[in-house]
């Protein structure tokens, strides 16, 4: 059933909220300052409830099925985390109530910084960035400020071809020109390539490890040494941290700055596109450059400090996405160190199991043991004129969200699967069977794939017209 847009249901005079009783005199503003009331739709409370309940029913979500989105780590979002974030003492806290009246929030932030520092192997963390890309920007600003402090700014930054698009975009915001670094034939960086590109006008390198092919950058230490030798810094994109918790610590490998995604590795919900949270961890030398305010502990009392002359400044109006921090904190406490390590182990087991189970069905460009995700292509079905996109859309008919497609760019028509550790063998087996069935259909009934999906509320949408003649409001 279609649900009309809100204003199609609007009728003059309805209101869906309860108006507080006024206990003070009415005082009108100067009419020259006041405009007409904004033309918001007018609905009863039940209208609003039904509208959004119906909308929700058209969404796929983790709670309705498996989301094998490579590089997105769509793991289960525990419900208890929501209970914690909703506690009145957290949810109703005003950010300017003052340290004395905010000790619980400050302590939570301080402790979360410590926990993330331990997990990543860095001595300090800022929780302020509001998302992963925001964390990247924060990290790059610190690298930029560090070089400035050394007395000589640099102009370039190395970015491997497997990087997320946010990496070069973040570098650009800091005025750095991205220099593309090709991965080697094994799908990982080769020290020689990096050595060739690295010079004293290059600020550093941005590395995702495990990389977006799901492979561990096994030359990471050499690469870091090369960059450091030329006075550069190493930025680590921690988007794929879910593969290696308790196995490696980026801070021990020569990485100088690392961002994490609490909404990936640490189980906070993605919310249909956010809010996320992108804490940044740094080595000792970069601590003075962290954004303000920072949280400090003295004699079991916590406070904000802003007196940091080398700080890059401020990245958020207050302290970042505190509500997301609460959820991640609850998750880490629920898992403990052993639990986090086991999560990584099982995430990697799930991905390898899929890789092995599908490598004779789909083309696997890099047949090496993978980490938490594996990347296939559409080569094996191209003869039937079937593309990765067709397979992805057909998966919807089998009840699965498609994997990440056409990324990473270094692989043609990539089909990038990250199951995460919260999917059971049974559900993964069903996914494998679905992919196999689809590849069979590619030969036997290619039209069925090209016109897929058939079951969702709508079929493929006309995205070209949407972009050419944008209709952005009703």
């Amino acid at each position, binding site marked *: 059933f*279609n649900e009309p847009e*809100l204003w199609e249901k*609007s009728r003059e005079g309805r209101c*869906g*909220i*309860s108006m507080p009783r006024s206990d*003070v005199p009415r005082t009108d*503003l100067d009419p020259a*300052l006041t*405009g007409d009331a*904004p*033309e*918001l739709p*007018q609905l009863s*409370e039940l209208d609003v409830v039904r509208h*959004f309940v119906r909308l*929700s029913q058209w969404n796929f*979500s983790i709670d309705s099925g498996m989301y094998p989105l490579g590089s997105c780590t769509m793991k*289960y979002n525990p419900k208890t985390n*929501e209970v914690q974030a909703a506690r009145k003492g*957290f949810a*109703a*806290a005003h950010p300017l109530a*003052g340290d004395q009246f905010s000790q619980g929030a400050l302590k939570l932030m301080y402790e979360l910084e410590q*926990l993330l520092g*331990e997990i990543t*192997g860095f001595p300090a963390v800022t929780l302020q960035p*509001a*998302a*992963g*890309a925001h964390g990247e920007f924060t990290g790059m*600003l610190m690298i930029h400020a560090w070089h400035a402090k050394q007395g000589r700014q640099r102009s370039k930054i190395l970015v491997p071809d497997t990087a997320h*698009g946010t990496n070069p975009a*973040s570098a650009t915001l*800091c005025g750095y020109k*991205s220099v593309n670094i090709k991965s080697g034939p094994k799908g990982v960086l080769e020290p020689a390539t990096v050595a060739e590109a690295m010079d004293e006008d290059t600020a550093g390198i941005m590395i995702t490890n495990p990389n977006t092919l799901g492979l561990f950058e096994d030359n990471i230490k050499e690469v870091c040494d090369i960059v450091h030798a030329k006075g550069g810094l190493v930025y680590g994109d921690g988007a794929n941290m879910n593969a290696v918790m*308790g196995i490696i610590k980026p801070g021990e490998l020569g990485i100088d700055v690392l961002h994490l*995604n609490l909404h990936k590795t640490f189980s906070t*919900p*993605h*919310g249909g596109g*956010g*809010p*996320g949270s992108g804490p940044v961890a740094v080595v000792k030398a970069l601590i003075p450059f962290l954004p303000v305010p920072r949280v400090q502990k003295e004699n079991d009392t916590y406070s904000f400090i802003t007196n940091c002359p080398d700080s890059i400044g401020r990245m*958020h*109006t*207050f302290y970042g*996405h505190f*509500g997301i921090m609460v959820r991640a904190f609850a998750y880490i406490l629920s898992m*403990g*160190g052993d639990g986090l390590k086991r999560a990584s*182990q099982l995430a990697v087991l799930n991905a390898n199991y899929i890789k092995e189970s599908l490598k004779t069905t789909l083309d696997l460009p890099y047949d*090496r*043991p993978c980490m938490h995700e594996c990347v296939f292509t559409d080569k094996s079905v191209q003869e039937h004129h079937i593309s990765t996109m067709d397979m992805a859309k057909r998966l919807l008919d089998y009840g699965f969200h498609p994997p990440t497609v056409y990324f990473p760019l270094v692989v043609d028509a990539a089909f990038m699967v990250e199951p995460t550790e919260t999917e059971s063998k049974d559900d993964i087996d069903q996914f494998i069977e679905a992919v196999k069935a689809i590849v069979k259909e590619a030969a036997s009934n290619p039209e069925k794939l090209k016109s897929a999906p058939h079951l969702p509320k709508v079929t*493929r*949408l*006309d995205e070209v017209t*949407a972009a050419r003649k944008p209709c*952005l*409001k009703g």
Partner: protein
Amino acid sequence: MRYLPHTRQDIDQMLAVTGHADLNQLFETIPDSAKTKTGLNLPDALSEWDLNAEMEELASQNAACRSYTCLMGAGSYDHHIPAIVPYLVSRSEFMTAYTPYQPEVSQGTLQGIYEFQTMVTALLGMDIATASHYDGGTALAECALIALRKSKNANKIAVSNLIHPSHRHIMKTYLGPSGYEMVDIPADKNGLTDLAAFKSMDDIAGVAVQSPNFFGNIEDLGSFKACADEKNCLLITSFTEALAHGLLKSPGHFGADLVAGEGQSLGMTKSFGGPGLGILAGAQSMMRNLPGRFVGKTVDSKGRRGYVLTLATREQHIRREKASSNICSNNGLNAMTAAIYMAAAGKNGIREIARLNHDKAVYLKNMLVGAGLQSVYSGAFFNEFVLKAPAGFADKRREIAEKYNLFAGVPLEPFYPDMADHYLFCATETVSRQAMDLLAKEVQS
């Protein structure tokens, strides 16, 4: 562990398929030298029940854990949130969905955000709005970058000193490495942005003014627009209190080119400052310059109405280093929250709540001035205003907080060092006359 579904048998069967002897061997491609020797030195896992106890203990160390009177605003506002808002937004299908890149199975999120965009344009009187940003400050910083990039030759942005200090700080941070310059426009004696000072500036790509400004005063945006037009620069307006637009003339009415602001008031908890909701709107001409996501309406292959993420060619995952912004995750669920709130309040509801905020703030100001605090500015305000207190008020304010859990205003000195003893008060629809009378009595005593 209840989040990990693997049985011993599952693991054995899967390892047999992958050809590994045990779970550790899965990491054979990692050089031993790279593996950590220290393990994870973290507290032991807590059960759900111990977690509840520990978190409640932490929450109870915030004053907000019990009923309190919040006469503080300054970018975070205490408003009533109808029960339907958290109920609806916490539905699994909204909360645990990914970014709607697969529109066929994301129509719920997409239609909801499309409706959000539409209602934001109605609220602000603007042509278009994005699918959300992190917060008001980062949205404003993006606006500054847009104006500077669009300008052919000017490389300065004029920024009112009465924009939220944190927002100005973020702008400064964002502009840091860019070589662009931020020029302050000072406040005049009425607590308004000094138009004359702006008039005297040259080489300006855009001018940013907040209204109501940080002191709560309502700016004359029309004059800034006229002046900006003369200088051929963009007018950027900002706000921290979205509900003010239920009552005031909209930025669109005054011809703003870009509007950035904080939407926390539209159904979100304060949550110690985040996540809130960055709102970003613009004139039609700004469409391809705005950062982040847009939802657009289109049709499917059978001609049925549907919604998609669109204009992605501006975005980082397509444009990479040529993207205008690096934003990826935004605050989508909070945009949905705001959509639900605005739909429930509706045209008349938002108007009435806005009037009530104004009424309460006027009452509070009158009471406190009657109790001996000093009015600093005489112009129109929405729900915030500045008062000057006698020296020593800081102690009294803390005592009142300790005694009544009543927070009387935000001290301005940390933000404006020359404004010792000045406080920014806020009254919303949540504050009772009784609480305000109590405060006045305590102040007077």
